[in-house]
């Protein structure tokens, strides 16, 4: 194997892993506050569709990204309103979000092109890859990690920041407490509802950006069912990461790597049927989940926020 081959595999690994990582980080922060958001797939695809359409019509990728942020925050707000204020079942609300999101995004894909035609095949400005000065000169590592698009570079900053926030700051401590024991948090003067709103919205914004990276960065275009189950993989990755932003990087790279491998094998013209190769990430998700759950149960620390999925009502006994 020559260097060029390794570099090309690494590049795809990172590019495929980026949207997964955004979505996983978003879901980690939401779940840390005790809110389960199963709407990842729906929010992600909505982010992909709206950001692509916005970038196409404004001729500006940044405005596309801004649209994804707005759409993400709206969908996050809806989920928070349903689950925190109305105390709707979090699973049901999340699933509804996914069904609604995929449906609406597919509709938009068919109608938002010029003259109400399809968006498939359109070209919009996108986030192009550019070499990061100096760092891209590092052998192998440089071209793989530092010839990427801006959203990837932004992640390099975001991951340590989120980790530091979660484990080393006061608001981060409060966030962890809210997901573990909302009653105790409340009695210590933490505004549980506000934190839950805040982090559900924040999480949904990241998830929506994950979608934008698909249509404006990685795949650069719109396709029917563009997310292809990545939202669900992200939910599995949260468990793989044991709700830790740094471990999420590992998971995202692993899954990105499988994507890259599948790509390469297809390009090399293997005899393995394509549909089987396409199955790989999903099979791998199941395998990883089973192993992780076993292992963590063996260590007796699953690490899920103890109050995940449970509504909190102050004057209700429990």
């Amino acid at each position: 194997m020559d260097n060029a081959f390794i570099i090309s595999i690494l590049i795809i690994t990172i590019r495929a892993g980026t949207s997964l990582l955004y979505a996983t980080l978003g879901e980690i922060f939401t779940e840390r506050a005790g809110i389960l958001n199963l709407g990842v797939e729906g929010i992600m695809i909505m982010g992909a569709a709206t950001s692509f359409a916005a970038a196409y019509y404004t001729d500006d990728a940044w405005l596309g990204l801004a649209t994804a942020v707005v759409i993400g925050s709206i969908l996050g707000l809806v989920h928070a309103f349903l689950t925190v204020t109305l105390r709707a079942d979090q699973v049901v609300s999340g699933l509804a979000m996914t069904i609604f999101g995929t449906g609406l995004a597919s509709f938009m894909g068919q109608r938002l092109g010029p003259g109400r035609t399809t968006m498939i095949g359109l070209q919009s400005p996108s986030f192009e890859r550019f070499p990061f000065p100096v760092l891209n000169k590092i052998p192998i590592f440089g071209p793989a990690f530092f010839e990427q698009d801006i959203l990837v570079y932004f992640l390099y900053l975001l991951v340590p920041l989120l980790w530091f926030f979660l484990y080393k700051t006061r608001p981060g401590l409060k966030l962890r407490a809210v997901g573990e024991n909302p009653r105790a948090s409340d009695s210590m003067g933490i505004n549980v509802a506000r934190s839950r709103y805040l982090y559900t919205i924040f999480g949904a914004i990241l998830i929506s950006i994950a979608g934008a990276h698909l249509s404006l960065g990685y795949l650069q275009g719109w396709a029917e069912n563009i997310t292809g189950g990545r939202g669900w993989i992200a939910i599995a990755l949260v468990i793989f990461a044991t709700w830790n932003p740094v471990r999420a990087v590992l998971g995202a790279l692993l899954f990105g790597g499988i994507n890259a491998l599948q790509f390469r094998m297809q390009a090399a013209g293997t005899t393995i049927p394509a549909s089987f190769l396409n199955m790989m990430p999903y099979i791998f998700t199941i395998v990883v989940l089973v192993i992780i759950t076993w292992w963590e149960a063996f260590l007796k620390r699953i690490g899920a926020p103890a109050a995940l999925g449970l509504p909190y009502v102050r004057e209700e006994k429990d």
Partner: protein
Amino acid sequence: MENPKATTVVQLKGITKKFPGVLANDRVDLDINSHEILALLGENGAGKTTLMNVLAGLYNPDGGEILLNGKLVQFHSPRDAIANGIGMVHQHFMLVESLTVAENIILSLQSNALSLNLDRIKKEISGLSKKYQMPVDPDAYIWQLSVGEQQRVEIMRLLYRGADVLILDEPTAVLTPNEATELAAVLRHMANEGKAIIIITHKLNEVMNFSDRVTILRAGQKIASFLTAKTSKEELARKMVGRKVLFHLERSACVPGKAVLKLENVEALNEKGLPALRSISFQVCCGEILGVAGVAGNGQRELAEVISGLRTVKKGKILINGEDVTNCTPLQAIDIGISHIPGDRLGVGLAPNLPISDNLTMKAYRERPITRGFFLDRDQLQVFAKNLIQTFAITPPVPETPARLLSGGNQQRLILAREITANQGVIIAVHPSRGLDVGATESVRKTLFEQREQGTSILLISEDLEEILQISDRIMVLYEGKIMGIAEVADITVDEISLMMAGQPLEKFNHELPADGLKT
């Protein structure tokens, strides 16, 4: 004992709090003074916790006002109460288990600073720790701490925030007698410093020893207030329950019949896979109560579980009326006639979200008339439930109320009602009166006594020595899963029991063991 320095800090005026179907507080007035310890006394469900939750900002009152140093205040959340120097240690601790002591304390600081300042805070914790002689390790995780230590963290947290009014809800219910004495000293120290302390407790001895003033609530209303020095246990109990309470039950002499429950060299493991019971042999006769004493965690729970079919017996035999019932399933245990009153009421004893009626019929539903083939007869079920609710005086007497909304005492009555109706000869009772008021405690013990009178064999597992001494016929002491000795109540002293609880087998009580184990 009236303190000349005492001044009124908080005045509650006409506090009213309603829950669906219950008036938990009914126009309660209460004055809280600095330099004083006030004891709040009342039956289960009297509204003590509710009243204090209102003061701590957790509940919004439906009526009445709170005056702080003469000024009207309104608390919309615990945050407001904390900001005004009022803090509460709840009955169920409000700590985040997965965080450390220092982190839990930081959480409650009303600071918007970004940085954790861990080092500074740890130093301050150590300082407070020394000042009040409450050792705590700021780096320990909450889940690693004993209940007593967790309580110290709770108190420390209030002190750290500079609370002037400290409320403690049943602080000693979970403590060993030693820890309770230490706590009393800490509270007195704080009161002398000018803080106002309120404790809720069911133990009249503690009220007499700890407090300067007592206020009694009954059915949501304030009934009376006393200076502790000018009252007596008997008077308090009478005011609280509304009738005279018997501190001593008349016991008829035990006429043990044939051996009913018999264990032979039973061994079992705990959750961690370590030995929890080691070669346990004893028997309980018809019409006898065998009390099992011991410090918590020495195999008591496991003992109850092996007998009721909830835990596997690794070695040895369990016999009931000579029939081998080792490792039977819980259903078989029920059919054989074993009733189990578990120590963990909400976790094991009840389905908290189901109504009283369903909880009551959880054993009887398998048989006629409640079941008819595949179907339940809801009418019969209601009749059955209403009957028991009346017999055991469960309040509220509404069969539809979810069990979790009942006060601790009424939850226990519910379990008793179910288990005693199903009783066919053996009762395993674990901490049957923990957390119960004097009236409810008396009624639980009376009920067990009646069952004994009728020939039931009762295994009473309790951490409350007083309870064991009061109603058992024989006492067995467990230490690290081993029997330290078995003796007739009349033959043993409290000191001897304490020695055995600390792990010292006493020769003179041991001779019974082999005989018990081998005699068939």
